């Protein structure tokens, strides 16, 4: 680790101004950033912790029934506090990492990081969530821009993530055996006006929506709706833990299981 300054503001405005400094970086739970620093792969001059800002923590239900989660809310809080209002999302949060990770890592950090194998990006894209920052609102469909890249500007902070609650939803995560991130994860949400299927872990371009599956399910939400559909393996990730063909196959299996869970 290189030396850095540390700030822990208590308001979003102070955090934004601290992040205006040269090479300043936001610190959520540090579950991704701290290991990176320890390996000397990043050298921020200042770390601005978002952990001391009460305004961006916690889970609440908005007037329109949507679930709003503060950007600095840890996974464990979502797992317990969203269990009644949005069980599929709470279940997703409850399957991230281990208890230590869940009690440190935050939803904002996970979305901002956009790891291609992370769970929350699938939850947000699958739910059609809105990512609210200190300056604007970004639809999930416009937020994820490929591996480790998002629509966030330098110094922009995720303050809230707003999830419309579907009639039924399920997250099916197939574990990468070592990291236990998603080797493939499928988040399926069934709304009155349509089905959304978001896939993580699989694609070289990061989280994506499987539109053919959505179309088929919109025609008829049936267990065998996917018959004849498959994902083109060409853009899938190939690594030690699975070939392109295996990941493409798992996308179908996990989607099928998500459908079953939503029947």
């Amino acid at each position, binding site marked *: *680790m*290189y*030396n850095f300054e540390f700030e822990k503001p208590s308001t979003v405005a102070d955090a934004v101004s601290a992040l205006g400094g040269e090479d300043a970086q936001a610190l959520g739970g540090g579950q991704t950033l701290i290991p990176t620093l320890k*390996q*000397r792969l990043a050298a921020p001059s200042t770390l601005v912790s978002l952990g001391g800002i009460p305004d961006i923590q916690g889970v609440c239900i908005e007037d329109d029934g949507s679930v709003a989660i503060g950007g600095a809310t840890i996974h464990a809080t979502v797992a317990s506090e969203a269990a009644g209002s949005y069980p599929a999302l709470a279940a997703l949060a409850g399957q991230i990492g281990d208890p230590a990770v869940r009690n440190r890592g935050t939803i904002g950090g996970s979305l901002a990081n956009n790891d291609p194998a992370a769970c929350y990006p699938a939850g947000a894209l699958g739910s059609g969530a809105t990512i609210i920052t200190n300056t604007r609102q970004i639809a999930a469909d416009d937020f994820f821009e490929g591996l480790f890249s998002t629509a966030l500007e330098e110094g922009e902070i995720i303050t809230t993530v707003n999830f419309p609650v579907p009639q039924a939803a399920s997250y099916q995560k*197939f574990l990468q*055996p*070592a*990291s236990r991130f998603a*080797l493939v994860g499928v988040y399926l949400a069934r709304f009155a006006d349509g089905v959304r299927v978001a896939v993580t872990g699989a694609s070289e371009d990061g989280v994506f929506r499987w539109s053919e599956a959505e179309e088929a399910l919109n025609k008829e939400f049936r267990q065998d709706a996917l018959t004849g559909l498959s994902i083109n393996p060409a853009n899938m990730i190939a690594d*030690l*833990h*699975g*070939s392109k063909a*295996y990941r493409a*196959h*798992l996308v179908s*299996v996990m989607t099928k299981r998500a459908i079953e869970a939503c029947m």
Partner: protein
Amino acid sequence: MPKDSGIGASSKRREDVRFLTGAGNYTDDINVHGQAYVHFLRSDIAHGRIKSIDTSAAEAMPGVVKVFTGKDFEGVGGMPCGWEVTDKHGAPMQEPPHPILAQGKVRHVGDPIAAVVADSLEQARDAAEAIDLDIEVLPAVMNMKTAAQDGATLVHDDLKNNICYDWQLGETDDAKVDEVFANAAHVTTLDLVNNRLVANPMEPRVAVGEYKPGTGDYTLFTTSQNPHVIRLLMCAFVLGLPEHKVRVVAPDVGGGFGTKIFHYAEEAFCTFAAKACNRPVKWTSSRSEAFMSDAHGRDHVSKIELALDADNNFIGLRTNTYANLGAYLSTFSSSVPTWLHGTLMAGNYKTPVIQVNVKAMFTNTVPVDAYRGAGRPEATYQLERVVDKAARELGVDPIALRRQNFITQFPYDTPVALTYDTGDYNGTMDKLEVAADLAGFAARRAESEANGKLRGLGINCYIEACGIAPSNIVGMLGARAGLYDAATVRVNATGSISVMVGAHSHGQGHETAFPQVVADMIGIDESMVEIVHGDTSKIPFGMGTYGSRSLAVCGSAMVKATEKVIEKAKKIAAHLLEAAEADIELKDGQFSVAGTDKSVAWGDVTLTAYVPHNYPLEVEPGLEETAFYDPANFTYPAGAYACEVEVDPETGQVTVEAFNAADDFGNIVNPMIVDGQVHGGIGQGIGQALLENCAYDEKGQLLSASFMDYAMPRADDVPFYGVDHSSQTPCTHNPLGVKGCGEAGAIGSPPAVVNAVLDALNSGGKAVDHIDMPMSPSRVWAAMNS
């Protein structure tokens, strides 16, 4: 009735209290006043020629004490190999130099190039970044088979090729072996890989070197399984120091699994640098460094052929193995694919003709050495996989095929150099069939199938050779060390006992089990006995702990020393009781005169030994005895394992549903500790079979260089184990009749898991012959769909 103390009691592990409450004293807990920290600059290139190293900028950085490179070690020895293997043509193995810091070339990712000693670790790291390296990248030698070909790129330019040795054991006449196979009714052939593993003990390696200019004494604190071996190797072969000026301390050690047996460059470096810098020097490995500098395990590529006659008797076995040694010879690396592997190829079977062929290869990878089981898992895996495959090909019951070929007469001379003293392989198989409820398997399979899963049952037998010995034989086989052990039993005046042992406990529970033996022999409470280990300034010269040897070898020395103590104490008791020595009996801590009610307590005798007022003149005062013990033979634990798995046919995911082990460990001192050793070993075996994979790419980059990609088994990857060790054939040649239990689980379990997965797939109509470990979901799925 289970005993509540002494031999046979499941005494609770007394050391666990300090381990579990954070009160242990590990090497990283040791900080010496004024210490500096070393950071090693390690190669990120697998194979390259060092053109230049410029350390001038680094030397000028804040806090830097000194920067070392290979040049600083030109007059110093390299890391030695402790076993010289002679190849099949009678030539000694090729033994390239292994410098403390790279000289001329870097040979694996992680090879240390320079070392920066600084006031703080961060300053050392900063300065290391300022070292200017010019390294010409050379093609990496990664594939063992191509590395063996003429004209292959050489890992070591001064060697004639990349083959360390081409070794053979068993039948030397190729024509005779060919004839056996030509006349066979059936031949089963299997190509397989024993996957490379990283031991990953919870505690990474640490070394603290200290030098006292006033006396010229060195102290090395290190995470070692065998402090005396480290002292001998470092003093005699590397640094040229007199042993009496060097103390090596291995305090609490957080797991070893073999990888902390070896003498590592970092240990010699810290000792050397402590004098060169005139400051204590400390190194603590990061987990990332551990992945690329701790010796790895396994990594064999083998072809095995089994010949059977028309009645399904095994009539011949031939193996051809490429064994990866990595870039340099680690301390005992050369012995693993040879004397710890080839000798085990008979397994539990009376196969009359066996030929084992091993080519040991240098490659641009981390050195490979002993890892829990060391050679014996590699042997067992080949044998038990080919036997299982033969059963499937012949359509016979795999248990019946094994039973039919079991060795049943003991002692038994194998065709591969061992003499099994005793055993009862049908006995452990009988226990297993009951414990694992094999009769109920069909019903369990039907239930799994009703849930859309495939269920498989895998059986495996193993034999291992533990407590490698005797010294005169292993010396003939090339060992450059003795393999005895030693113990000193020091009785204190008030009767409590300190036992200084050469074995080292790093998770095994010696601190509990060893006192059980001594207390039982005398008839006193276990709490009156304590062992001392891990410090060359306190203990006699013993060889440490590995190869399941501690109780069988060091425990035997301890028994001998205790016998000497009792013999002397009886003389004192006879004097006090005014009786003949021959009439004195010791029971429950009381010396009594046979046939009388006259007695004297243990504590009165021990006090008399140190306050010899009323004392036999011909007897020396004091009560302390040392014994060295060199075993007559190996011990041969053996057993039978059963694994049941479910396979998800949609994803290839394997789950272990049940695992039962029936082991014959001879006599047992602490059944709970033995169960725990088997549990841990099976956990590691399941890890190897399903999860762990140390993988390199073709450029020699380590792909599984962290826990993000190297899958360790976790609690939810393993089932509750059933362990039965009631089948006991005590070892015939050591005083306790014990055999050793530390490695059995890791040896016996991988083939059971693999056999179970293949059984599941075949039951589902997939004719899959073999899948290499680890049987990850993607590999199982690929095999099902090929």
